[in-house]
């Protein structure tokens, strides 16, 4: 059961996230009916799920919010900011409740009670207004209008019979006659009355299957009845059950067998089983009619001609005359009309059932998979890639052509499998970004600033593990923007900027990277202030000449903050250094660009995948290295003498001057270089740089393994990969090499 609960909680988290997103959309289009219904629907599902798994607190709480939105949905209440605030607060509270579903922590309990009473009083307030006869409540209006603009016409109460048609989806089963020899078997007739609780359908119970099971026991006849005919059509909730049934069952099985049918729904309905005859009542048309009359069924009210069916069923048995009058028939005083709905043969029901399963299959376009399973999948694929490399290697060295062919096939398949496995692990960045809508909304209200968050490219996909680690950094950047970057509305007006500030989050692909750009149109970073602060903190010498880039770099120092005062939002100095470190942990980079008065832009650059890359396998001084293929532009063979004679590490290739990086020198190789070396031109942003290596071995799918903490300092190497022969190749981080290179150039 616990695993189900876990699932339910996971699902609830998702629902709440959906709810929050929908609420935020709704806030902008508060008259949009479809969004109101969506919000209502999500809450309803949440309530149903919670009740089903015994999360009573959540169910109760959601119920109250739901009732508010029910009024909104029925045009009885106008949405306003108060309601939004209340519901958004509730969303937060629901998240808390999910963490502690049974309110075991005392603090949570008191908090829940406070929240609940707040909510209830709000609901009560509205209810009193409604009871006082107000048809439409607009809480924003200073006084409650006595007559509203939109008066929803109460729907005329439809004839009960209409509702029956509405619920026709519950087909009633008429069993085919089981081929039983008549006389020998002791047949008893029961009247089974089933009054389902309203929520029965929400538990996933399908009454049709119950009748199906009953039909297996013997002959049955089902009559349905509307539980409450005083309801208007509008009040009907399609997820609730308003029908009850009476079943006449002639069976050779005992009462216990009938009870067994209802074993799973016992708690969801009121069940009554009465013995009405010691015979099969279907054998006696008269008696049957008599019973029908007693339980309230009259022929005139039938929609379909049931007689025909009855006769058909009764015919074979009717021959046997048994005039025993059923005297023990119980008296029923039910006034409600009982109407047989339709008669369907069991076969037909089966058909319906199969249809519904196929419909279900078609709907199942996505499935939920625990993320650990995906991690395992990725690990296995990684192992497979490594093993495949071994096979390829073996195939190359052996003379067996058949093995070579197989190895080639395996290689192709592995590549496809790898790509698919990667795709599975990609999630759209949307889930992450919608969270921030809320943050910006709340924070801008708190800071009394007027800010709108625009999100572009939310369909961009990223490895799921990266998405998790991105949340904090982006949140931090947004907080910084809101607190320091964006000016107060009055200031903005004076500056001739639009009063409403804008923050844009753009996510897009760029080569083998995903780039997330966060831009605001605020004041920008005051570079002089940053510099002065750094000088006063003794981080740089007062006479140091710093470029813009250098100053921006200062922002990433631990404990650096230019905020004059510490606010609850930001300014504590635990800031950009943490952001950078977190992004670096997932092999990403952060860049800042700013223009005073115009705004600041933060660019997060991330690799597409974390674990397997296509690489170029090369050799330097007898050691294998891998350069990610995504950054490789071109390869050239160059005489060693040309490299020796080049001035300032610049070489002319294809008529273009390209600075190069001599890896042998960098790695302090002691052996002598080969006479012909290779230059691999790699690209990074606007730079093109050559990396000089000994030889190129070939293309290689590299499964990245971390080098571990012991080698943290080796920033030119981003990981290692195991080759087919079991040796290790180191993965060169070309971006870092280039950065280092350009840094050396500067200094």
């Amino acid at each position: 059961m616990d695993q189900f609960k876990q699932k339910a909680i996971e699902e609830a988290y998702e629902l709440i996230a959906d709810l929050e997103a929908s609420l935020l959309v709704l806030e902008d289009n508060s008259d949009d009916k479809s969004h109101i219904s969506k919000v209502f629907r999500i809450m309803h599902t949440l309530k149903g799920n919670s009740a089903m798994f015994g999360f009573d607190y959540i169910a109760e709480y959601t119920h109250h919010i739901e009732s508010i939105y029910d009024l909104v949905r029925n045009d009885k209440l106008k949405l306003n900011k108060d309601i939004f605030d209340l519901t958004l607060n509730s969303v937060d509270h629901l998240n808390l409740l999910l963490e502690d579903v049974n309110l075991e922590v005392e603090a949570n309990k008191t908090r829940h009670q406070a929240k609940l009473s707040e909510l209830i009083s709000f609901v009560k307030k509205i209810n009193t207004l409604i009871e006082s006869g107000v048809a439409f409540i607009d809480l924003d209006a200073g006084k409650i209008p006595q007559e509203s603009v939109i008066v929803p016409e109460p729907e005329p109460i439809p004839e009960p019979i209409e509702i029956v048609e509405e619920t026709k989806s519950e087909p009633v089963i008429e069993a085919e006659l089981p081929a039983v020899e008549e006389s020998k078997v002791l047949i008893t007739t029961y009247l089974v009355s089933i009054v389902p609780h309203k929520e029965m359908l929400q538990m996933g119970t399908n009454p049709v299957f119950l009748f199906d099971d009953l039909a297996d026991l013997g002959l049955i006849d089902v009559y349905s009845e509307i539980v409450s005919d005083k309801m208007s059509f509008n009040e009907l909730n399609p997820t609730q059950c308003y029908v009850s049934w009476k079943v006449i069952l002639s069976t050779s099985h005992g009462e216990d067998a009938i009870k067994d049918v209802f074993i799973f729904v016992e708690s969801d309905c009121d069940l009554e089983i009465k013995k009405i005859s010691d015979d099969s009542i279907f054998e006696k048309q008269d008696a049957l009619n008599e019973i029908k009359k007693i339980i309230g069924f009259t022929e005139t009210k039938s929609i379909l001609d049931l007689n025909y069916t009855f006769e058909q069923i009764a015919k074979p048995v009717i021959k046997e005359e048994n005039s025993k009058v059923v005297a023990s028939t119980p008296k029923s005083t039910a006034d409600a009309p009982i109407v047989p709905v339709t008669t369907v043969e069991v076969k037909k029901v089966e058909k319906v059932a199969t249809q519904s399963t196929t419909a279900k299959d078609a709907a199942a376009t996505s499935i939920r998979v625990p993320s650990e399973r995906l991690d395992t999948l990725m690990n296995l694929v990684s192992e497979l890639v490594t093993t495949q490399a071994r096979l390829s290697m073996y195939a190359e060295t052996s003379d067996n052509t058949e093995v070579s062919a197989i190895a080639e096939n395996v290689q192709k398949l592995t590549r496809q499998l790898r790509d698919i496995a990667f795709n599975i692990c990609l999630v759209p960045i949307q889930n992450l970004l919608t969270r921030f809508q809320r943050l910006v909304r709340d924070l801008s209200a708190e800071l009394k600033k007027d800010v709108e968050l625009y999100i572009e490219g939310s369909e961009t996909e990223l490895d799921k593990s990266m998405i998790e680690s991105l949340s904090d950094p982006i949140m931090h950047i947004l907080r910084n923007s809101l607190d320091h970057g964006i000016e107060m509305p009055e200031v903005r007006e004076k500056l001739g900027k639009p009063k409403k500030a804008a923050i844009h989050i753009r996510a897009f692909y760029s080569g083998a990277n995903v780039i997330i750009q966060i831009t605001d149109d605020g004041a920008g970073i005051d570079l002089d202030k940053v510099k002065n602060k750094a000088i006063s903190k003794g981080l740089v010498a007062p006479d140091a000449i710093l470029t813009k880039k250098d100053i921006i770099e200062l922002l990433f120092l631990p404990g650096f903050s230019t905020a004059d005062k510490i606010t609850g939002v930001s300014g504590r100095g635990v800031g950009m250094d943490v952001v950078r470190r977190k992004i670096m942990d997932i092999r990403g980079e952060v860049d800042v660009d700013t223009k005073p008065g115009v705004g600041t832009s933060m660019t997060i650059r991330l690799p597409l995948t974390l674990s397997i890359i296509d690489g170029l396998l090369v050799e330097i001084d007898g050691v294998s290295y891998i350069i990610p293929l995504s950054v490789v532009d071109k390869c050239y063979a160059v005489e060693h003498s040309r490299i020796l004679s080049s001035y300032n590490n610049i070489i002319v290739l294809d008529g273009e001057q390209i600075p190069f990086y001599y890896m042998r020198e960098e790695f302090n190789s002691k052996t002598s270089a080969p006479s012909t070396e290779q230059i691999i031109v790699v690209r990074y942003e606007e730079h093109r740089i050559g990396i000089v290596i000994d030889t190129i071995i070939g293309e290689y799918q590299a499964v990245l393994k971390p080098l571990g903490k012991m080698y943290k300092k080796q920033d030119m190497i981003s990981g290692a990969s195991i080759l087919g022969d079991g040796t290790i190749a180191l993965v060169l981080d070309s971006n870092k090499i280039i950065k280092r290179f350009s840094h050396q150039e500067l200094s």
Partner: protein
Amino acid sequence: MNELSALTSYLSFKLGDETFAANVSKVLNILEMTKITKVPKAPDYMKGVINLRGTVLPLVDTRIKFGLTATEFTANTCILVLDIQIGEDSLQVGGLVDAVQEVLEIEPHQILPAPNIGSKYHSDFICGMYKASEEQFIMILDMDKVFSAEELMTVQETSQAIH
């Protein structure tokens, strides 16, 4: 193997002329020499990385770490795969030793306190001495300390290197 025997069993190995011992609970594996991939620009004592059944294992030259000359590879040279506890994390690391000797049963009372002065070895690493015979002492090492000190150094260097 029960816990108690794990606690009193020690693996002895040679570095140069001296014999050391490490608690077997720290030693996951003993490997023969295998191909080492050198990591460029790493400190001297970081010998490189090796492939341990598909994972990349960093390799430390224990001799350099202990102030001796770099290990010369012989037929007896072995790699001890060690499980090092650094704070909360456990870390696997390979240590090069000149030769592996035997597994000794040493009761706690047989362990003599480590001498504080006159030792050319960093006495922090040594948690006690065991008198194997009249002329031979075995130094019992605290492997966590031997390797975590390293780790600390690397981390510190990294943080200094930020700017």
